[in-house]
């Protein structure tokens, strides 16, 4: 485990905790679609970032934290892909099946857990990313715009205009 991977985790952790609690409070219907997988440990792995994300979507004990890859818990389900693809999947701007067909998205572990999480997120109206950015006002919007510039959208899985 390196200091380089621990440092970003420490920096983003307070934001992640704040964000996930607010999102959960605004979209309680998410949890019903997760069913028995509210207690599953998901590892979401954006391949370009120096850390992965550990999600346990238990409404009574919500966990969403940045973890160095070499210190990540053994997950019930793993979801791996480029950062912007994962962000757009969360916002239903990309189709998960198409990203899987193109091999841009990798899943392993409990497939039912992944399907339930995908469906729970897909049934949310609006953009969770933009909602998150709005929580932080103008700086949040600037950061989101910069992330979208720095981590360009996948070409695969999109519909041509």
């Amino acid at each position: 485990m390196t200091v380089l991977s621990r440092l970003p985790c420490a920096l983003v952790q307070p934001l992640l905790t704040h964000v996930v609690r607010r999102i959960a409070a605004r979209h309680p219907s998410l949890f019903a679609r997760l069913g028995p997988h509210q207690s599953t440990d998901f590892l979401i792995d954006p391949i370009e970032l120096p850390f992965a994300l550990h999600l346990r979507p238990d409404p009574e004990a919500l966990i969403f934290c940045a973890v160095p890859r070499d210190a990540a818990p053994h997950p019930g389900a793993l979801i791996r892909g480029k950062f912007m693809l994962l962000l757009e999947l969360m916002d239903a701007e990309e189709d998960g099946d198409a990203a899987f067909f193109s091999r841009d998205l990798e899943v392993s572990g409990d497939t039912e857990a992944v399907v339930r999480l995908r469906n729970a997120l897909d049934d949310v109206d609006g953009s969770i990313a933009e909602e998150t950015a709005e929580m932080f006002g103008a700086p949040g919007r600037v950061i989101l715009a910069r992330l979208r510039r720095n981590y360009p959208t996948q070409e695969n899985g999109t519909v041509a205009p």
Partner: protein
Amino acid sequence: MSLAELICPAGMPAALRTAVDAGADAVYCGFQDATNARNFPGLNFTPDELAEAVIYAHAKGTKVLLALNTYPPAGKVDLWRQAADTGARLGIDAFIVADMGVADYIAQTHPQVRLHLSVQAAASSPEAIRYYCENFGVKRVVLPRILTIPEIKQVRKEIPCEIETFIFGNHGLMVEGRCSLTNYLTGQSTNMDGVCSPASDVEYKRDADGTMSSQLAGFTIDCFGPDEKAGYPTICKGRYTAPHRSDAYYAFEEPVSLNLSRLLPELIDAGVHAFKIEGRQRSKSYVRGVVSAFRRAVDDIRAGRSADMADLVALTEGQKQTQGAFETKKWR
């Protein structure tokens, strides 16, 4: 006269609103149980969600069709009857059914609601279709994906009901409503439990070289090279070895999607009343992209223009598309 209605998938409430807003003439959906053939984890509607969805769709002039298109196990019909009663109470516009007992119950109990015959009934001959029309008052048949356009035109002349055909999406045709491949490996029935390759039995394994294998109930059904496009983990689309072949090959069907965007004028000319887009299990992104693309295409054709059709190949299974039997029975 063909109205070329666009019948669009709605796996969940947000997808339903997306389909309606993208121009669907009708949406089709199901409850969170075995009464429909997309009984997937976390998908579908509660009765309360369907009630709100019907109000939303009807306010925008869109019809709501309820899929009750699985087969009740012998003597266990209550779930299907309750679903039919709930759907009728909520004001849905038609039921999509496959089982004769379900069709008969609805015809007797809710005669004011239209009956559509699901592709799961596998009715492809005029004789079979007329039987459902005469005995249960079926108003529309969703044809199996095994007929050429000239055959569809001929069937249309010999039946007293509307025809709906799939135009885009999953191309798993086998003998629809009769496939038991999933049962052999998982013990669950596609046709009675409503789930083909249940996610709880699916596992993907990745090797260090990037090769990915898909497994169902512990059996490997396909293996994709590092740069190879993938498909759904269904047995019918797996690759197998056989005594007459030295290499693993697609023994039943291939991972490929149906796309009839180029055949829409011919289908309209053949008398097809409604075009169905498959994919209740897909995302809002898929629904938005595919429905709006076909909305523009159908509107162009209705206005006498050539259709300006978006490229949808990125959304297809295995990133491959086919016109299947609609073009020729020698498509494989």
